[in-house]
Every structure is written in structure tokens, then in C-alpha cells.
């Protein structure tokens, strides 16, 4: 479970990017964060993996309360939350295979099984023949798939995908979205940030942010709707 409780984030420059943001995400949910640039979507992702610390409020991820987390536990938290970065953060002088296997080496995955696991992931994300290529040799969509493979290879409980379709054409973006849905169907909690409204399927929970505030959250409205129905 992920809980954001009255979370604010003000950068040292004085720029407020999040203001009293609260939401709960249950395990196994598929949540889409939308909002214009600067709304605070990326900040939420960075707060989730303790790359940033909140200026106010508290965040819980699983058993960790991020305000009280020990520095030695941050690496454990980051293994629990996979992130697909907006700029991919694929290491340029490592092959796709090496980039993905790095995430397994970090979690001390048995060395003999790394090869098999990476090949399986390359199959899953649809680039089985690209393992030995370097990032520069890949297209945007392939790079995004490699980044997703790296994020989920160590089987994190939560996957945060930051604008995974932002740099892609619509068809490729749709493929990536379907890939994330497939990963979600395997039991992973997925949070996907996007400004593309076409992914707002009625089945998805949708949180809309503007200027660091939650404007709408379909989960709270449905909960509110359910609660009012119950009262009646």
C-alpha cells in the first residue's frame, strides 16, 4: 500500500511543486497520474523512491514510513519500487542486456539465472533480438521497452512509469501502455504518469494534478459515491 498524507514539496528555490497532496493506492491498482508539465507528477515518483524528501506530510510505502526511513534501508525501498524514468536513464556504454542484468546484480540475483531472466524479460517487453545492442542503436520505443524491462526485472511490488509514452508516436505509445497493462495483470501495482488523455480507460483509477494539487481522484469520487449510496 502507498499512502501520501498531506504531502508538500517546496524546492530550495521556493518553488512549490506539491501542496497537501493525499491519496491511498492499494496493492494491485493501476493508477494514471495526469496533469500538465510542472503539475508535480515526476516529483511524486521521486518522493516514492526517496530521491527527494517531502517538505511536509508523510509517505508510506509498504512497511516503510519514508520520513523515518534509515539511510541503509533506502536501497531496499528502491528495490521494492521499480521506476521507468522519463529520460530512461539507460547507461549508454552498456548493452541492453547489461543494463537489464545490472538491476539483477544489484539485488544479488543468482548469477547463473541472470541470463535466463534477462532473456525472458526481453521477450516480455518485445525486444528479444536487441539484447546485444547499445542504447544508441535503439529507437525511442525500444529504449522505453528496455527501460521498462530494467524496472521490472527484479520483480518490484510497485512500478512507477514517468511519462513512458511522452517521447513516442501514438501507436508506439499505445503498445507501451498495453505492456504496462500486461505487467499490471501479473500483480504489480502500476502508477503511470502521462499528459495523454487517451489512456484514461474507465477501468483505471485516475488522479489529476494541477499546480501541485489534486484536482480529481476517481477513487475518492467513487468511494464518495459508494458512501453516499450507502447512507441513502
Amino acid at each position, binding site marked *: 500500500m502507498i499512502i501520501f498524507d498531506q504531502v508538500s514539496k517546496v524546492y530550495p528555490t521556493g518553488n512549490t511543486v506539491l501542496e497537501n497532496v493525499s491519496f491511498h493506492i492499494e496493492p494491485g491498482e493501476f493508477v494514471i497520474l495526469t496533469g500538465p508539465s510542472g503539475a508535480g507528477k515526476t516529483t511524486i515518483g521521486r518522493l516514492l*523512491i526517496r*530521491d527527494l524528501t517531502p517538505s511536509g506530510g508523510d509517505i508510506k510505502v509498504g512497511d516503510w514510513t519514508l520520513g523515518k526511513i534509515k539511510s541503509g534501508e533506502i*536501497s*531496499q*525501498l*528502491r*528495490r521494492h519500487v521499480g*521506476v521507468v*524514468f522519463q529520460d530512461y*536513464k539507460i*547507461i549508454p556504454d552498456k548493452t541492453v542486456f547489461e543494463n537489464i542484468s*545490472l*538491476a539483477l*546484480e*544489484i*539485488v544479488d540475483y543468482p548469477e547463473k539465472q541472470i541470463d535466463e531472466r534477462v532473456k525472458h524479460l526481453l521477450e516480455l517487453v518485445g525486444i528479444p533480438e536487441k539484447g546485444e545492442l547499445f542504447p544508441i542503436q535503439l529507437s525511442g520505443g525500444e529504449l522505453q521497452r528496455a527501460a521498462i524491462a*530494467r524496472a521490472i526485472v*527484479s520483480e518490484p511490488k510497485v512500478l512507477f512509469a514517468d511519462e513512458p509514452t511522452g517521447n513516442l508516436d501514438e501507436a508506439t505509445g499505445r503498445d507501451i501502455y498495453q505492456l504496462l497493462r500486461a505487467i499490471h495483470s501479473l500483480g504489480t501495482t502500476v502508477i503511470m504518469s502521462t499528459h495523454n488523455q487517451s489512456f484514461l480507460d474507465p477501468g483505471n483509477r485516475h488522479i489529476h494534478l494541477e499546480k501541485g494539487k489534486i484536482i480529481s481522484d476517481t477513487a475518492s469520487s467513487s468511494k464518495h459515491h459508494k458512501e453516499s449510496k450507502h447512507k441513502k
Partner: protein
Amino acid sequence: MNTALKNIRRSPYQALAAVSMTGLTVFVVTIFALVSLASQITLQSFETKPQVIAYLKDNHKTDQVGQLIKDLDSTGLVKSATYVSKQEALEIYKKSVGNDPLLLGSVTDLGIITADVLPASVEITAKSPDNFSTIVSILERSEIVSTTPKGKKEIDFPQDIVAELTAWTRAIRTAGIILIAILCFNSIITIMIIISMKIASRRLEIGTMKLLGAKGGFIIKPYLFESILYGAVGGIIGWLGSYIAILYSTPFLAVRLAGIILLPVQFPLMLALLAALIIFFSLLGLISGLLAAARFIKR
């Protein structure tokens, strides 16, 4: 290990700088270690020989000699004091000149040298060259020690040689230690700077690894391997250079140090030195790597 080797391949000139600096240090360490060992052996060789010889009057009596030796022993400064009779002196003389008829006097107008010509003596080995003055003062007071026509007691002691040798040995050791300390410091700084530069140049990669959940130990491990490799390879190269230099200079040194040091230097000794150097300089590399990593971890 593979990552460390890859890092070295990517920046061969930095690796060369680290290895050559360490190699130079090892070269100097090896040479100074051997010079220090040689000077110590030379000094010991001088110290084990009789250092003070007092020549006795012909009319000395055995009990007088016994008393003199007793007096010397009672000071506690003497390792050994031995009486050498005229006959024994002749044997020593013969042994030192061999069968040279010229030196034996058989072809000179002096006639064949006999025991009567040579004086009896007391040969003393001191525990330390610092004790010479006390020993000599006891001998000077003795009535049985012969006197030159000028009234000076006939006492030989190579105080200057041993004192000089001791001083030189100490000076070489001190200079060596200072030089080695400076070079070791330079090696540490060189490896540290190179590893720091490599860490800095891969900051983005390291940042990504951190975001993926890598712990500090996982991130710095290849850099520590790399710095240990610099130390170990530098150690081997420096040792090899010094061994070649020693072998090259052996013919020159063997003649001058005959009877004191056995040359060429024994290979097992050099192998033991190589093992010690590899261990020491690997540790030095590890320290350098840790210092560089500590700066990165603090950030």
C-alpha cells in the same frame, strides 16, 4: 573484476600513470631494502671481527693477562676478550699472507719471520662501537700493554671505520624511510586522484545505480578492485625493474663485497620480497581506493 578491467581498458593512460608511479615507488623500496640489508650485513661483518687489539710487552705474565681480561669482562661492555700468544699471532699472519715468500720474509734480508718477531696481544670485540672509549681507557691503564717510542700505548681500534659505517647505515636507512614514505604518499595520491576522476566521470551511471537500489559497497567495488590492481601490478613491475638492476650490477658489486655479502642475490629472497611487495602495495591501492570512495560516499 570485469568492470574494473573494463574501466582500465577505457582509460589506459590513467592506468599507466597509476602503475608507473607505484612501480617507481616499488623500485626504490626494493633497492633501499636491499641496500639497507647489505649495509646491515656489512656492519655486522665488521662488528664480529676483533675490533680492539692491544699489543703486549714481551715480558708480560699470564696472570697479568688474566687480570686484564677479567677487568674488561667486568665492565659488561665486552662481547669477547681473547689472549693471542706470539705463536698464535704467527699462525694468523701466515694464514693472512698465504704462501707469499716475499711477505714471509724468506726472500728478504729480514730472514724468515718467526714467532719472536710478532707481539702477543689481547683481541677484544665490543658489544657496541659506542663502548670503544671505555675499553681503550682500561687498556691504556694496563702495565702489560706495550708502548711506542713516543710513549703511546700500542692499541689498534678501527673506531673511525665502524663509527662511519654505523653512521652511514643509519643515514641510508633514515633517507630511505623518508624517501619511501614520500613516494608511498605520492602513489596513494595518484591512485586516489585517478579513481576519484573515474568516479566523477561516471556520476550519472552511479546515480542511476543508486536509484535502482544499489548499495554503496556494490557501486564502489569495481573501483576498489581497480585500485588494488594498480598497486599489485605496480608492485610486480617495480620488483622486476629492481631485480634487473640488481642482476646488472652484480658483477661490479660481487668483487667489492666479496667475503661480506654473497652475490648474486638469492632468488628465494627476491620471491619473498615480491610477495611482500604485492601484499603491501595492494593494501596501499585499497587504501587509495577507499579514500577516493569515501569522498564520493560523503556526497
